[in-house]
């Protein structure tokens, strides 16, 4: 009994183990609270992530049926549990430093107590954010004309369907860091409408562009120097909510740097974005003969804009049937971001790909720690009949 009292009185903890002096010893015992302590977990992480942890910028994200990921403000990491057959005896610091025993004269021995035997440790592996889910969630209920006119009439507050997502909802659902999530929203051209993040229905996006181009002609505006206020005022007068009109304008424009004193912002219609949008609209019905498509496309272009076929990289595929060339829409933005799923769909679409056709459909794939060459090696088989021939990629 005396023994026990002495031991607890001299409990020294981790610091005594780590600073054990030469030619001295310490007794290793089970802690008075020794147990399985399943609420205690070990997480190994890189030194450079420590500041993020200490400033409480780190979260774990995922649905109950998903493997958890750890997110810093800008990166996503998979959490892997690595078990060990060794015994890792976990020694906490002594609870009360003043009580710890450093008095060697009383003959009692310092004690370090083991609280738990850890079965292993969690490790982090940097991964790509899981943004496919974001696209999926937001495309359940895109913002469309129907809704726009509904808003006009009444019950604005009624629109709180379960398939609408606020930022807080997205952060809970999507396994991506805040920064990656923001970039993901930007890349699918999402906009915050009444507190909810939405994507706009293709038809709606196109209608705004048509209206804009129509007014460019009507008012004799220059596509290189549009006055943002004037354009938004016009779109608003035509019944488009201002914030949505602004979002669309930004999607089709690049900003012009202000030179000197300028009262309102100028923007320039982006040739490529406008041409692609017009092409998409023409092809929304499906396949079309090349000549017919080109005719329609050219007719739709606003004055001063020049369309080139290269603009449609990653948007359409061509197919030769006899002497005719047909094209059909196949947009990289509609494909999954996970490499395995992406390549599966690509090879379902075509058994063999030439590099110039394949490249626009794989260049946006990013996997931490894997180069694009390594990705191709992993998911494709490259064949080259002769040294001069173009290499052809097929499924592995």
């Amino acid at each position: 009994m005396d023994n026990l009292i002495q031991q607890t009185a001299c409990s020294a903890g981790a610091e005594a183990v780590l600073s054990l002096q030469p030619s001295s010893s310490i007794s290793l015992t089970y802690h008075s609270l020794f147990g399985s302590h399943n609420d205690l977990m070990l997480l190994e992480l890189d030194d450079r992530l420590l500041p993020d942890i200490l400033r409480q910028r780190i979260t774990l994200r995922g649905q109950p049926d998903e493997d958890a990921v750890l997110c810093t403000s800008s990166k996503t990491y998979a959490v892997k549990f690595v078990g060990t057959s060794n015994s890792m005896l976990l020694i906490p610091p002594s609870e009360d430093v003043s009580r710890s025993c450093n008095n060697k004269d009383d003959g009692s021995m310092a004690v370090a107590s083991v609280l738990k035997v850890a079965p292993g440790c969690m490790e982090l592996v940097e991964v790509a954010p899981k943004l496919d889910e974001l696209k999926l969630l937001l495309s359940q209920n895109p913002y469309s004309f129907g809704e726009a006119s509904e808003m006009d009439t009444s019950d604005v507050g009624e629109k709180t369907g379960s398939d609408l997502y606020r930022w807080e909802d997205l952060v809970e659902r999507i396994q991506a860091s805040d920064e990656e999530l923001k970039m993901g929203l930007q890349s699918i051209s999402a906009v915050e409408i009444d507190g909810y993040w939405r994507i706009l229905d293709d038809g709606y996006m196109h209608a705004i562009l048509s209206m804009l181009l129509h007014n460019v002609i009507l008012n004799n505006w220059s596509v290189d120097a549009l006055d943002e206020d004037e354009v938004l005022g016009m779109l608003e007068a035509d019944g488009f909510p201002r914030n949505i009109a602004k979002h669309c304008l930004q999607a089709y424009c690049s900003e012009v740097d202000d030179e000197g004193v300028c009262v309102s912002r100028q923007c320039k219609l982006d040739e490529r974005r406008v041409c692609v949008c017009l092409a998409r609209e023409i092809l929304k019905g499906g396949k079309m003969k090349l000549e017919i498509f080109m005719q329609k496309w050219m007719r739709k272009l606003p004055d001063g804009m020049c369309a080139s076929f290269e603009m449609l990289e990653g948007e359409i595929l061509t197919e030769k049937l006899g002497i005719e060339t047909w094209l059909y829409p196949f947009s990289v933005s509609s494909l999954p971001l996970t490499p395995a799923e992406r390549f599966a769909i690509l090879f379902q679409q075509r058994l063999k790909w030439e590099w110039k056709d394949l490249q626009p459909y794989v260049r946006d794939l990013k996997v931490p720690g894997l180069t694009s060459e390594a990705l191709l090696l992993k998911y494709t088989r490259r064949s080259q009949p002769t040294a001069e021939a173009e290499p052809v990629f097929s499924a592995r």
Partner: protein
Amino acid sequence: MLIQVKCSCGERHCPEWAIVELQGTVEAQPSLQDRIQNLQIGLLCRPSSEESYTLVVGYHELTGSKQRLKKPILVLKKMEVEDDSDSKRVELDVIGVIRHKILFKTRPKALISSRPQPAAKGKISAPASSVPN
């Protein structure tokens, strides 16, 4: 679901924990298995000024060394926090950081000389001398 990783100890004050790692498992005698709290496992010694350590468990002596971990390990504690709306939310609190471990990776050496504390049989078993009550 979003779980916040918190650090209540604050910057630079995160208490350091220690790990003593050894191969295999430490088993107490069956008769003591349900009351091993405060039971002595063994004696950790640092015989010289080098970072070399011995751990004597019963009749066995392990030799190992102190190592700085390549990457630090955080000790996380799962907490259930009451939300404003009475629902429970899980948080992880960083309660410690581990930067060093004392690793015993060799097989135990049998001690032939008579030790003051007779230990039980078994591979590595805890002596019973310091059992409470």
